[in-house]
């Protein structure tokens, strides 16, 4: 049976099948995404405290509180520090290794598989290994650095180096992923481009910066975007390696702050306000990146 709707013709049966197929997904999305989003907005304006069971409208009070809370401000800086240090290091290292792997070497599969191995293992298990590696006295990291005459660090136990230690861990954990993406990108570039350039007398540096890099720009852009968004969601390694947020809260990130407020202090209102701030931060980054993406990325 056919029906007309806004000038289009549809089959009634097809409409039925379509909504039947969509029903489970939409139902779950409503209950576990859309309603929670509305609710988190609402909660951020209440003083709900799970311990005292109070719940009344308090206006902007939670926002005033968190923006005066030294820990929250620090958690934003810590998150930015993490992203700002990790992403450039990750980009340079993974691109460099991908370029090396792309040089038609023997044992490519072995190298690639080894670099990728940390990606597949669970974050918690990996973090437990690194807690020991980082141990200032019992861990091997200081011992190895000592062989090269580098003075020992207190790693996770020093506010000056704790976040950097987390960055090191997370570089190790995620490098292989970006290497594989870059390698696929590099292998997708037809060799004719660089062959033509080298016939014209271009050196390998010139070929890399003038041909390879621009052709790779969509992939680089993707890696940066995912890097930033994932940095704002970082929680697991922080919670395992520094269960209290590190010395002087030096590794307390935004999600960690939200978790503590909600599930350790039971201050739902404040946690909800911090969640809304996080939401807008991620949204703003996505929007800015989208604009920049249209401008700078070279899609041939």
């Amino acid at each position: 049976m056919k029906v007309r709707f806004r000038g289009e013709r549809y089959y009634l049966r097809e409409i039925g099948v379509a909504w039947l197929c969509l029903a489970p997904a939409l139902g779950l999305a409503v209950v576990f995404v859309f309603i929670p989003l509305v609710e988190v907005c609402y909660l951020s304006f209440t003083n709900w405290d799970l311990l005292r069971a109070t719940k009344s409208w308090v206006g902007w009070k939670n926002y005033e509180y968190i923006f005066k809370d030294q820990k929250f401000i620090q958690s934003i800086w810590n998150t930015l520090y993490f992203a700002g240090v990790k992403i450039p290091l990750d980009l340079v290292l993974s691109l460099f290794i991908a370029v090396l792997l792309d040089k038609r070497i023997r044992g490519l599969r072995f190298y690639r598989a080894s670099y990728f191995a940390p990606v597949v293992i669970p974050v918690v298990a990996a973090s437990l290994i690194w807690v020991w590696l980082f141990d200032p006295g019992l861990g091997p990291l200081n011992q190895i650095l000592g062989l090269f005459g580098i003075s020992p660090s207190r790693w996770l136990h020093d506010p000056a180096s704790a976040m950097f230690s987390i960055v090191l861990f997370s570089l190790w954990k995620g490098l292989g992923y970006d290497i594989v993406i870059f390698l696929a990108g590099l292998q997708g570039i037809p060799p004719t481009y660089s062959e033509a350039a080298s016939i014209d007398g271009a050196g390998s540096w010139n070929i890399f910066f003038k041909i390879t890099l621009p052709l790779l720009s969509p992939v680089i852009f993707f890696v940066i975007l995912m890097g930033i968004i994932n940095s704002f969601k970082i929680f697991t390694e922080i919670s395992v390696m520094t269960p209290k947020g590190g010395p002087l809260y030096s590794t307390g990130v935004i999600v960690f702050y939200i978790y503590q407020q909600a599930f350790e202090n039971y201050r739902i209102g404040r946690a909800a306000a911090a969640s809304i701030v996080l939401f807008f931060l991620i949204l703003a980054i996505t929007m800015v990146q989208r604009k920049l993406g249209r401008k700078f990325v070279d899609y041939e």
Partner: protein
Amino acid sequence: MRKLWWVYVLLSIGLIAMLFPFFWMVLSAFKSNADVYVYPPKWFPSQWNFDNFKRVFEMVPFALYFFNSLLVTVLVTYGQLFISVLAAFALSRLKFPFKNAVFMLIVSTMLMPFVVTMIPVFLIVSAFRWIDTYQGLVIPSLFSGFSIIFLRQFFISIPQDLQDAAMIDGCGFFRILFQVILPNAKPAIATITLFNFLGEWRNYLWPLIVTNSTKMRTLPVGLRYLMTEGGGEYHLMMAASLMAILPVLIVYLFSEKQFIKSVAFTGLKS
């Protein structure tokens, strides 16, 4: 042959750095107390003993953690795949009013990370009385905007002719999905399955929030509490980590090609 020796040197230095933590974990899982608490650190156990593994099982219900993780991961992976395939089918292959609006709605969920909505999700789950249950661990993870959109993009690239031909032969919509679309979408299905499996196996934040009792903990949560409640003995943690990592690593060794393909596939698609 060009001289590439420096490439091998650089790659091998990187390789050692990447594999060293694994090496340390494996060696340390067999160390005794006396090997751990010495300075400078000892790299090799003075005697290979298997006591650490036994003690992990005595301290915590490790087998139960493992079972919980496996059950939750399998249910979430295949449940989410089923729901996503249906939704992606409707969004790519069927014609119905408000299709575009539904599509945009699902795309918009990708802008709402779970960390933002986790508090209300927790409250809703507790209103259902699902705290500390398998339902609570599984059901909120069954929807994934990313899976749906990813599958839809792939389904759309399957030629319409195939569908039309099947329609003329009298195939219903569900037969088209299962006999025309799915057999042609194997790479996408494999990728999504692999990602969801890995993602769920390591999932930490949600199980941490939604479980209270020891018997409901999944492996990542159990490992974490082993550190804080188990006195944080390094060699025991390494034995436990090794047992948690080994199954994933074995699967990886046998299907490494599929892993690499899947990552490259999604990276370049998005």
